[in-house]
């Protein structure tokens, strides 16, 4: 497939936004159980939610560049019964709305206790809003991943690993950003977020490398023989029917060399997994703004390369019909 930068930025930006929100809410949950100190509503949760929202809005804006008719984008909510894309279109604004509400509830201290569980555990508004928002964040990860995983003949994508990778990579970048944000806002949660960022990044390394191994061994079910229906071991295309390009030759071929692909793979493996983990471990002992900032920037840039590779690696069966001019 030809990687589209609109989709690359959409998926990486909203992934980081979702991950950042999950990090914020995890911090709040820990403080409810008195494991961690309570954070400042204004500076931490309020601005943290705003930062997550900025990423989500950035992703949404990027997605519009993918559309031929952005003015009709509202129509894309219609087919949520059958289309994962339609489901994502619903889940994204719903999650954005709840994240906004979560930020408002915290920032303006509109945080009444709604009900009490077992007479001891107070559930306030922010906790409930955050719980719903967490559910929506996870739902959005599933929708985004399933858009790719549900196309069964794009065999590189048609795997549960696609959904798992979208979830873990997004969450990892969000927690790394949360570490930077916690350090920036002088919170005590720096080592807590750094620790989780390391764990999730390592976990995502395992699942992403699993999918690389899976894809390296993949055996494509469609061949030239099934594509034109002639059972013969030796079939060659002599003409694709036209000389210059068409949509079919532009949309499905990334046009880069094998060496470029291989480099891209190593670049993203180093930038998404190795550099952030090394820097975060270093930051645990000697926290500094530069270390955490470089860790996040490296991981996010690496994720752009990772997403580029994800698209480029998918081999569409229609390419069988476009082998020769």
């Amino acid at each position, binding site marked *: 497939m030809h990687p589209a930068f609109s989709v690359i930025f959409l998926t990486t930006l909203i992934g980081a936004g979702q991950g950042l929100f999950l990090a914020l809410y995890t911090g709040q949950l820990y403080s409810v159980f008195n494991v961690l100190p309570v954070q400042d509503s204004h500076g931490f949760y309020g601005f943290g939610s705003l930062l997550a929202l900025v990423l989500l809005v950035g992703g949404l804006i990027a997605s519009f560049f*993918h559309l031929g008719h952005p003015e009709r984008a509202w129509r894309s909510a219609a087919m949520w019964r059958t*289309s994962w894309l339609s489901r994502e279109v619903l889940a994204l604004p719903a999650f954005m709305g709840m994240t906004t509400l979560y930020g408002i509830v915290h920032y303006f201290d509109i945080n009444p206790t709604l009900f009490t569980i077992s007479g001891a555990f107070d559930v306030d508004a922010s906790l409930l809003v955050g719980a719903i928002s967490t559910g929506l964040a996870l739902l959005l990860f599933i929708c985004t991943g399933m858009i790719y995983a549900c196309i069964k003949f794009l065999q590189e994508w048609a795997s549960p690993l696609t959904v798992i990778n979208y979830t873990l990579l997004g969450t990892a970048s969000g927690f790394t950003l949360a570490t930077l944000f916690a350090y920036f806002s002088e919170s005590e949660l720096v080592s807590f977020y750094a620790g989780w960022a390391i764990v999730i990044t390592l976990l995502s390394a395992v699942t992403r490398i699993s999918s690389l191994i899976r894809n390296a061994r993949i055996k494509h*079910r469609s061949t030239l023989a*099934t594509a034109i229906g002639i059972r013969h071991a030796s079939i060659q295309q002599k003409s694709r029917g036209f000389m210059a390009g068409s949509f079919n030759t532009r949309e499905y071929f990334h046009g880069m060399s094998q060496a470029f692909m291989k480099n891209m793979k190593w670049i993203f493996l180093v930038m998404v997994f190795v550099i952030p983990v090394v820097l975060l471990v270093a930051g645990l002992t000697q926290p500094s703004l530069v270390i955490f900032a470089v860790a996040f920037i490296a991981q996010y840039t690496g994720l752009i390369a990772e997403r580029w590779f994800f698209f480029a690696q998918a081999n569409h069966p229609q390419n069988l019909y476009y082998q020769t001019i």
Partner: protein
Amino acid sequence: MKQLALVIDLNVCVGCHACVTSCKEWNTSGTAGFMSDFNPYGEDPTGTFFNRVQTFEVGEFPNTQTVHFPKSCLHCEEPPCVPVCPTGASYKREEDGIVLVDYDKCIGCKYCTWACPYGARELDENLKVMKKCTLCVDRIYDESLPEDRRKPACVLACPTNARLFGDVNDSESVVSNSIRENGGYQLMPEWGTKPANHYLPRRKTSITIHADELTRIDNPLKKEQLPLPDDDEQTLDDIMSW
């Protein structure tokens, strides 16, 4: 349920591209708007097409066959491009099984093209909507045309009658009959898309001749156990040639 489709006979297709040009001509001047071209007379022309003819070589020299292979939307009975469309612009008609795009609803997100294993859909880069073969839905029901002209443009253009058009779910139709009689098959059956369009394979007409069929068993000379005459002897022909 009715399912209109094309049956393409690879045994008679000569790869002349008449179906490609007549398709483009009919549909670019059709009611659904033109099919955009860019740089048509320039160095790198590109444009939207519903139909293409490709050429494949099967086998190793000298035992090769050249196969001309027309490719357009197959109007699948389980079209994977339809459920993925977020707006419902891509749909399959209940009444005749034609898969169509509502150009007024399409947002141009290209997700349906990813979901088509055959690469049958093309984005019109000018109008920014997805386009595909309509089976000439604007002429097959047009009652102002004589009845024998109510067929897709490609079918009418084919000089070798390699393209047949009809209802593949009607077991008595010409298309069903040709699929049945000539071993019609579907493309990429491994994905369960159940394409409605079928292809008829290359066929060689041959008969098997055994050695005993080359000598007449009822040869009258043999029957009477007479030896064949020598070369310099008179034969029956010499005697009888008066």
